[in-house]
């Protein structure tokens, strides 16, 4: 049976919903994002893109380029609601629907020909139903792997429909070009350029061995696969190196140690609780600091054994912060991430001495359990002063 993957991408999703809900926005540029000085564009309608606005652009820049646009704050709840509606339509087409973000999903359409016709016909049907039932325009990419389908949906957006028939994958990746290949970003492009690799056919000329010598084992393999139109394993559910992370951009730069540390404490809890919830272990912690001049650094440390508790993560995070941050230096963004994540039986080797963090871990598990039952349990040091005053 021929494997057929659909990748469905909802075009300019947030902006499209705003245009749907506000008829006066239709046909005009709409920009969704944080509206403060620090805001970035989350989404923009195709009318706004004409002016050079794109997502992730600072909002002040968008205002310069396209002052006449409608600027709106994101309404995530509404977007999720519509997203669920679209997904439920997709689910009537295939039993295997893998939603990968609020506005993207993969469908395994293998063996559905007798129900919906040839892939292209099925895609047209799908697009029509979504349009009729939600008013939204989607792009569909069809390929023999998720990797090809994903790039196909982006090939002629918006309202796209692109099928890469089996055997044409190499020609397709050549047409997509190195810059737009999934997973190849700025830094990979630069690294490739240093070795005079500037196109997909160029890249394909290099043997797997050679690429691994140049770029390391994992990246080498990745580049070799994508240049041959092979799926390097995107969204297969088994990612090789995962991390659990959180970060926050402060409304105004923070230069007080206590405030930074309080945020680190909160973030350490957040990431550690997620590992406990998912039943995984982590032994590396990274602290990311972005200074007011946008220079960004990451420092990390790895413990010999997996972390026991959020307190332990916080202690390490605090010393990582201290190693790179000087008293009074304004910080724009702070983040904490856990890596070296492994599943399974944690503490194979027994300890001689009671681990000081063992009790804390037990406590954190209890807190997590209470929270899952809807109780609001919070560390006192994470309360803001106003809340402290309010409590009796």
């Amino acid at each position: 049976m021929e494997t057929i993957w659909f990748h469905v991408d909802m075009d300019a999703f947030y902006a499209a919903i705003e245009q749907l809900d506000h008829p006066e926005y239709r046909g005009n540029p709409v920009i969704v994002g944080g509206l403060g000085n620090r805001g970035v564009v989350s989404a923009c309608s195709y009318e706004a893109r004409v002016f050079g606005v794109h997502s992730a652009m600072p909002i002040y820049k968008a205002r310069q380029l396209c002052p006449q646009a409608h600027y709106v704050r994101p309404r995530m709840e509404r977007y999720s609601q519509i997203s669920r509606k679209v997904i439920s339509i997709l689910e009537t087409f295939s039993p295997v629907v893998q939603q990968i973000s609020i506005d993207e999903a993969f469908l395994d359409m293998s063996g559905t020909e007798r129900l919906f016709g040839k892939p292209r016909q099925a895609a047209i049907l799908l697009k029509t139903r979504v349009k009729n039932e939600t008013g939204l325009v989607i792009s569909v990419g069809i390929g023999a792997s998720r990797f090809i389908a994903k790039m196909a949906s982006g090939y002629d957006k918006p309202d796209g429909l692109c099928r890469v028939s089996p055997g044409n994958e190499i020609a397709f990746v050549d047409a997509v070009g190195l810059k737009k290949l999934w997973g190849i970003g700025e830094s990979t492009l630069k690294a490739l350029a240093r070795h005079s690799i500037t196109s997909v056919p160029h890249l394909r000329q290099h043997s797997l061995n050679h690429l691994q010598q140049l770029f390391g084992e994992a990246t080498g393999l990745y580049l070799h696969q994508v240049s041959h139109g092979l799926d390097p394993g995107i969204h297969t559910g088994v990612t090789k190196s995962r991390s659990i992370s959180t970060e926050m951009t402060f409304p105004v730069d923070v230069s007080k140690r206590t405030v930074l540390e309080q945020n680190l404490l909160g973030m350490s809890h957040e990431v550690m609780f997620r590992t406990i919830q998912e039943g995984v272990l982590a032994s590396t912690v990274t602290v990311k600091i972005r200074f007011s001049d946008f220079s960004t650094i990451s420092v990390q440390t790895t413990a010999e054994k997996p972390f026991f508790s959020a307190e332990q993560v916080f202690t390490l995070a605090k010393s990582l912060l201290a190693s790179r941050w000087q008293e009074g230096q304004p910080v724009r963004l702070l983040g904490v991430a856990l890596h070296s994540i492994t599943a399974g039986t944690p503490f194979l080797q027994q300890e001689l001495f009671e681990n000081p963090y063992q009790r804390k871990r037990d406590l954190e598990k209890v807190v997590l359990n209470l929270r899952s039952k809807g109780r609001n349990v919070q560390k006192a040091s994470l309360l803001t002063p106003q809340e402290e005053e309010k409590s009796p």
Partner: protein
Amino acid sequence: MKFACHKNTLLKEIILALDFTSQRNTLSIVSNVLLETHENILYIMATDQKVGFKTQIPVETLEAGSTTVFCDKFLGILRTLPDENIIFEESNDTLLIHPDSNSINFELRTIAAEKYPTLEETANQTYFTIGQKDFFSMVSQTIFAISDDETRYFMNGVYLEHNNDSLIMVATDGRRLSYINRKFSQTIPSFTPVIIPAKFLTLLKKAGTDEGEIELSITDTIMYARFGHQIMYSTLIKGQFPNYRRVIPATQSFTCKISVAEMNEALKRVSLLVENKAKRIYMDIETGLITISSEESEFGQAREKITCDYTGDNYQLAINYTYLVNPLRVIEGEYFNLCFTEPNRAITIKPDPERDYFHIIMPMQKD
């Protein structure tokens, strides 16, 4: 400053001094060694501000004075010079090095001695004397068990405790522990227990000869050691060493006597197929026989039976094999005893007949 001395006399000391200078990539004054001469003596000093080294050798002082040079290069030069009398002369921020009868000339940049950090005062310490052999065998029995996890910095060194007429050394990484309690005939002045950085003990071992004596002086923050004219010191690790006495089993139910050589050989073979991360092996103990096996892995499995002196129920123990290999390397005598009570409790490894040391291993969980 100007002095003359034989290459080999100086070389020996500079080799030691190098380990006490800063080995960081960025050069600074603490990458240098301090040379000072007057009245036909050369004083050599080095410190990275955590450890320090002082010594003196007889030279011919031609002009009293002092300076500092980059120790690493200075040593490199000394090593290559011919084995003969060499003149060292400092002028205009340069140290001129030239052998008596040769056309070799080195000019090494210097930094003024006044800029060198002050070393710890060593003259007024009260030292006690013990045999080097005893001291270094205590170190060898324990040092391998320390932790290199920097988050457990207080386990990055060897714990030394005064106990009536004996000294106790303990090292642990939290999962295994090594202990030695050596009696001394002479009186050793009492001191508060300390945690000695492993690096310092390694440096002492390098300087020692395993013969003769070593003089030690221990304060709350610094440990000093003296071999004749050579004085070395190190700041100690601050922190609370875990309460090791609590984890030493008072009694154990079973004892299994095994040949050290046979176990070593078996571990060498079985460990070839042990999974590299957990390093777990199984030991199945039954009357007269112990079976050592690896877990089944993608490569296969290894199993070996050796005889032992044991009567009792059958037990299976799971341990990290390196925790057995390390102590077996330093255990003296032909046989050792493996003592245990239950598969999930501490295992003791000690020589048979017993001596003044033992090693404790926490087992691993079985699947």
